[in-house]
């Protein structure tokens, strides 16, 4: 019976993956806004317009011909790294 819930199955896209698909890039030509912008739908229904941020981290790794290293593996190779809590 359909109870109106959201069924999540193994292999379904994650929320992050859905969010990436929802973000669109548009080109504006107004003099002070000329250029590419990312349009992101927010949870409250508004649209957020941000300067286009370009390729993703995964795409940059692919362009470099590499695979992302886990923090644990990086620290195993280069030692412990401090954190500052600001970002």
């Amino acid at each position, binding site marked *: 019976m359909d109870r109106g819930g959201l069924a999540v199955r193994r292999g379904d896209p994650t929320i*992050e993956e859905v969010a990436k698909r929802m973000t669109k890039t548009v080109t504006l030509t107004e003099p002070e806004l000329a250029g590419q912008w990312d349009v992101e739908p927010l949870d409250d229904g508004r649209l957020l317009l941000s300067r286009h941020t370009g390729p993703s*981290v995964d795409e*940059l*790794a692919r362009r470099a011909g590499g695979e992302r290293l886990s923090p644990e593996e*990086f620290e195993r*190779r280069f030692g412990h790294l401090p954190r500052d809590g600001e970002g």
Partner: protein
Amino acid sequence: MATSRGRVPARFDDEPFGLDTDRYRSGSRACDVAELARRRFEAEGVPVQALMACDEEGRDGTRLEGLLKVYLPLIEAPAAERPFGMVFDPIDTERGSVLNYVAFGVRHHPKGSHAPTVYAIAHRRLHGRSP
């Protein structure tokens, strides 16, 4: 790729680096700092001593798990005198470990500013949306 002791080779992609420096006026301190850091890191690598791990959940709501950063300019000075940051993604290539450029920008904006920080830019490149 040869890794000199205490340094990790860095790789820069022109597209994100150009987008990040285009946020600032040509000839501004921010552009000078970014371009000097790029030249230095491409030539010599990034000193491990200057690297910090980004936070899985930062005070500003960004989640940069697995990414690394340096404060810029790369000088011996209090953090407040190094207002910029550069974020890297550590990757494994057939030539060894490489720090792949992710973002450059200011670490903090004055109150009331809506321009993204380096952390917000990196978050968008990592997660595909704003923090």
